[in-house]
């Protein structure tokens, strides 16, 4: 069943990707990829590697982290509930089967698309710094999110509110997606909402690149907003998780912009190969100019 759902998500996202690349990126930039993709990916390889390592770590910790959070985690479910009360039930006032389907799709398909599209779109930019910043921001989101998951044990609204959750509940409306979400997320890991922080990260980057991808910016904001609202509509996250997710997104973008270009692996590599053992204080800055901004 998981395999079926995964295949379907992969197919839909691939199709959406194909269409949107033509629409937002344009044939010209895509054509440039034919000759340029190799050097661009090589430049961004460290950022990709970092993300892969962190996703792997994330996966291990989601499983083994249970004992750690058992020992050091703080139970916050009731605190969140007493702070915000029935706020997320507000979204229930717009609940219809169609709206539920829309947000279920947003939570699963749109989210996957929103994360993958900008990676491809930024490879199509001649300057790789945005791509590397984006990948670094993804990594930071996961790392910081994971730390919070270990420290804060909280169940989402669907596990606390019973009345009013049925109709809008992903679990009741589309049980097949449960497999997907449990595969990537433990039910006690709700603070902060990574759906929110990653979608918002993409939206912020869309703003930063609005000159290159004019049409993508409003679309990204719209898609990210529906993903963010879906987390509350479906009873998966508290509003507090969403706010924390937004803060996390800003923090990650700021950090990523500061970090990227500061160290250059290729520069170190070059230096070692050239046998240049003299310490050069201005080394990193020089390299930043070369393959950075």
């Amino acid at each position, binding site marked *: *069943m998981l395999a079926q759902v995964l295949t379907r998500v992969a197919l839909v996202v691939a199709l959406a990707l194909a269409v949107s690349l033509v629409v937002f990126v344009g044939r010209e930039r895509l054509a440039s990829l034919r000759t340029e993709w190799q050097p661009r990916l090589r430049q961004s390889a460290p950022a990709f590697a970092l993300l892969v390592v962190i996703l792997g770590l994330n996966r291990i910790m989601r*499983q083994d982290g249970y004992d750690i959070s*058992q020992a050091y985690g703080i*139970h916050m*479910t*009731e605190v969140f509930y*007493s702070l915000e009360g029935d706020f997320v039930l507000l979204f229930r006032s717009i609940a219809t089967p169609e709206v539920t389907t829309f947000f279920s799709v947003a939570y699963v398909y749109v989210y996957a698309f929103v994360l993958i599209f900008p990676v491809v779109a930024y490879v199509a930019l001649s300057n790789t710094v945005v791509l590397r910043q984006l990948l670094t921001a993804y990594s930071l989101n996961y790392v910081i999110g994971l730390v919070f998951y270990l420290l804060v044990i909280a*169940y989402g609204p*669907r*596990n*606390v*509110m*019973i009345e009013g*959750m*049925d109709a809008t*509940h992903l*679990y*009741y409306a589309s*049980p*097949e997606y*449960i*497999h997907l979400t*449990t595969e990537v997320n433990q*039910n*006690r890991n709700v603070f902060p909402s990574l759906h929110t922080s990653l979608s918002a990260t993409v939206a912020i980057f869309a703003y930063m690149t609005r000159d290159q991808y004019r049409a993508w910016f409003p679309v990204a904001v719209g898609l990210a907003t529906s993903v963010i609202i879906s987390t509350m509509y479906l*009873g998966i996250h508290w509003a507090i998780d969403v706010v924390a997710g937004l803060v996390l997104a800003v923090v990650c973008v700021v950090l990523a912009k500061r970090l990227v270009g500061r160290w250059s692996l290729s520069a170190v590599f070059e230096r070692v190969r050239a046998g240049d053992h003299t310490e050069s204080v201005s080394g990193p800055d020089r390299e930043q100019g070369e393959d950075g901004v």
Partner: protein
Amino acid sequence: MGVQRMSLPSDDVGADADADANTGYSRRSLLAAGATGLSVAASGCIDRVQSVVDSDTAEQVSLSILSLPAADGDRETAEIARHLESNLDAVGIDATISTRSESEFLETILIDHDFDLYVGRHPADFDPDFLYETLHSTYEYDQGWQNPFGFTDTLTIDRLLERQREETGADRERTVATLLEGIAQEKPFEPICVANEYRAVRTDRFDGWDENYLTTGSGYLGLESDASSDTEQLHALVTDQRLTQTFNPLSPTTHEQRVIVDLLYDSLAVPRWSVPEETEATDEETQAGEEVIDAANVSIEPWLATDWEWDGENRTMTVDIREDCTFHDHTGGDDTDADGSDDNGSESAIPLTAEDVAFTYRFLADTTYGRAASASPAPRYQGHVSAVDSVTVEDEYQLTISFSTDRAVAERALTVPILPSGSDSPWISHLESSVESADDDWSPTQGDWSIVTTDHAPPTGSGPYKYDSHDAGTSVTLTRVEDHFTLRDDDHDLPAPTADELHFEVDPGTSSSVERVANGDADITTTRLDTYALESTIDDDAVSFVESPSWSFYHIGFNTRSMPCGNTHFRRAVSQLVDKQWVAEEVFAAEDSARPVATPVAEEWVPDSLAWDDGELVTTFEGEDGDLNVDAARELFASNFEYDDGALVW
């Protein structure tokens, strides 16, 4: 003492006093017992009770209700907890719900004893003797399923618990009735309702599901497999990840472990249900339109034992066990599977003999096996093994067991899983290494030391299925034991394993499990379903919902070790905040799936005074249709506690 007397009313125990004022001696003695129990419970908490007097330092009573997650756990439990929380808030108590995963929930209650009160299900049993383990003061400080409430009433409840073990027939019935009345007065826990269990099953690959047995391992034996389809593997869904991580039969914190333990281990005897014929069904049963699970319908029948004989006094039993049974061998690897019962397999396999049975009872009573200064009883099965006085091995396949109880209770003791005792035994080797690596004065924590908490993989039992492999948190696969006696011997009509393999896979919950059974992706939902699932319609003749009668009851459990739940009056008042009738009708979605109860035993044992409809000792809800009569409910508390500006203070 003066302080304690303050909270004891002179001639009134609250709202139910009028109702039962004329029930005679038993009530009076119970009231006295109630007072005793209270003073015992309160004596450890003098300074907290004193604050009732000192109004300057009075603060609002606050309670934490332990419960399970609604969507990913047990929705009914969460909903009852929410009902209780809002009614506690209404009477001026600062109540909050603490949501915990199933295993944390059990660990907090059974091991840490760190709770005020909780809402949950108790496994219970067909025989009221499970109350001995649940409430006897000898287990006051134990960790595990024995007395999680820390309840002590040595003068009345303890004596009744002991007496009913030794009596038979009408005598025992009377004692049990008095005992149940006493428990209903003292309220170490308050039963809410008994709910049937529901599962979704497919009948196109495997058929012959017997609703009576699906709560036990027997439900997975004696099936009919459809020859025309691929029936090598029976695919079952469970919710609790722990079922695929730990296989320790002693673990108290793995809920619903019973099915897998039953399949991996043999016991001397098993409970068998005899379903009454339609024509023989009593009025009550016909009226309810379903099989009422009755103690009378259950008997303990030989399994690993071929037979047993009682001596004239019904205190000593001679048991013959089946010959040539072996414990599962995990050393041989995969080749033994292929060859099945070939000679190599049985030569290296460890035979199961009377020694193993003797070891099992001694080991469950003391998991240190006499190696530590004090005994360390297992956190499970204490009600069973406490009935056993001694076990004597007569020869390889015969033993005598002497009991401190009468037959009914004693035969229940035969249902514990038999563990291996030989030098290859994982229990022995664990013990040896623990003793070796420990200091001179080795004293492991009872109920929570490594032999209890270890995952115990691979598990070594002798049951009809053998552990094959597991992927922690995801699935566990068991394979059929080809030379298990149920397949090998033909001197019995016991159910034998049908499917070559049983594959238990973790699935997130009710709605997705039902969907997977409907898709043909699984044959059965082993974990019971939340009742809302029954409202869904599945357009497939091969899929049906099976209703299994159960003794398991939903209840509020109080931690009587600390105040305010250590106070009997407080527990009584809290019990009147739950509308059991409303819960049974509204929280449990399917019609007639739950029935409200005033006492936690099988229907057959319920005394008239505690019959739900008209029993004079039944605790009633202070309100109607789930809505609390707040003023009246506050009166219940006001007679023993103080209010300050609308908040209950102490």
